[in-house]
């Protein structure tokens, strides 16, 4: 049984720039995988490999077990794709475009196509070039969904759209996966949308995967932790506490500078002011505050507070750290 998408150690360079650096990624059938990253992080490059538009320089890409570059027709027949680019032919009317596209897909669902056109308030007689940005995306959604593709790939579909069309996109994703065996790859930098509809999260930055895991585990596993060094502590090693797989120092009261990561060189200020440190930590198991406080205190730290972290905060802190 092959996965809808399986990527292993995929690398891509453009000249001297590394666009993808040993990316491993698997999407299981029925999942909605949210792919997040800043502009230029490598999301679109990754998607172009999935569509067979780019050949892997090293590593491998398999869509339903097949190499999309070697078997483009077979692969593209199973993928519905919506990009942020206005890439539909402007001279065609919507109805012509629908007829034209239908010819490529044996499983085209005409009822779904006309239902979606009606729901999206699209006039079939309108020419593509005269469509607004929102109507353009809605048309692209109809074209991508009507073939009932096994894998729906959305590359930043919502960027620059009004909230009504953004909602259409989200509902389309949810309705699509409600059917047996359908899978979605949803790339976006609108984090709250990704959090809503995805059950798996992949965060990439500069071609490197920073996070890959079930959405719930990511959102619940990351916490903000505020702690204080005990007087005789040298101030390192908080991140080595059991159960913690990542600890990024974001700021401390005495240095004032956030996220520089450099410890304060002014040791006098550390001694005279209570040196509170704010970290973003990732925990592998659910956090028992009591146990953690005890562990911290045994290690020479006083645990002050554990707070939840939003996806926004996780994203900001992890991508800033990399820069």
């Amino acid at each position: 049984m092959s996965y809808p998408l399986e990527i292993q150690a995929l690398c891509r360079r453009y000249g001297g720039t590394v666009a993808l650096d040993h990316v491993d990624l698997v999407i299981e059938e029925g999942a909605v995988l949210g792919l997040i990253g800043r502009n230029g992080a490598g999301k679109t490059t990754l998607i172009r490999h999935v569509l067979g538009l780019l050949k892997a320089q090293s590593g491998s890409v398999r869509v339903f077990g097949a190499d999309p570059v070697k078997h483009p027709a077979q692969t593209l027949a199973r993928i519905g794709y919506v990009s942020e680019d206005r890439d539909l032919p402007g001279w065609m009317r919507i109805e012509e475009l629908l007829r034209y596209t239908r010819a490529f897909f044996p499983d085209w669902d005409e009822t779904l196509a006309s239902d979606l056109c009606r729901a999206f308030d699209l006039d079939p007689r309108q020419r593509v070039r005269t469509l607004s940005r929102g109507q353009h995306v809605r048309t692209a959604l109809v074209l991508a969904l009507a073939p009932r593709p096994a894998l729906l790939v959305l590359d930043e579909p919502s960027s620059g759209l009004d909230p009504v069309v953004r909602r259409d996109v989200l509902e389309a994703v949810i309705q699509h996966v409600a059917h047996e065996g359908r899978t979605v790859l949803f790339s976006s930098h609108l984090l709250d949308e990704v959090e809503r509809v995805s059950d798996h999260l992949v965060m990439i930055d500069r071609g490197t995967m920073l996070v890959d895991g079930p959405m719930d585990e990511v959102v619940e596993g990351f916490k903000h932790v505020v702690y204080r060094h005990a007087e005789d502590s040298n101030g390192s090693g908080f991140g080595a506490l059991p159960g913690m797989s990542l600890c990024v120092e974001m700021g401390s009261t005495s240095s004032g500078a956030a996220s520089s990561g450099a410890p304060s060189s002014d040791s006098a200020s550390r001694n005279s002011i209570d040196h509170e440190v704010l970290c973003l930590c990732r925990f592998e198991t659910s956090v028992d505050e009591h146990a953690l406080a005890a562990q911290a205190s045994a290690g020479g730290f006083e645990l002050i507070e554990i707070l939840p972290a939003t996806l926004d905060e996780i994203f900001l802190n992890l991508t800033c750290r990399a820069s």
Partner: protein
Amino acid sequence: MSSLANCVLYAYTHTVQLRIQPGATPIYQQVSDQIRRRVSAGRLSAGQRLPSVRALAEQLAVNANTVARAYRELERERFVVSRHGDGVFVADRSSPFLARDRRKLLESAVDRLLLEAEQLDVDTDEVAELVRERSAQRAESSPNLPRRVGS
């Protein structure tokens, strides 16, 4: 004919209007919290059918696994029961074995209170006294507060 059938079906399933705000609270928890509050406040009564996982997921535009997890949690806490192939229903909260489950639910709240007390250097006797005091004040200020009979 068919519209009548639809009406009857619609009447059986109790629709809920929930609000999802992505942020610090996981979305499954926002769903379960809001349903839990409705059940506790008597806004949803025993035997009422909740929307299916798929219907609620589509209504809220959230992942179906998220809704399924919220329902699983509510089922574990016996706020709802799921009858295979039939749907998810609001549980009968008067059934006797619920007392133990209620206690379990309350335990985590008590643990949080004790932790807070510990951090504020307040001992357990003082906390217990405070609980009784506040409870008396609450009863006085709102005599219509729902009271549990028996147990």
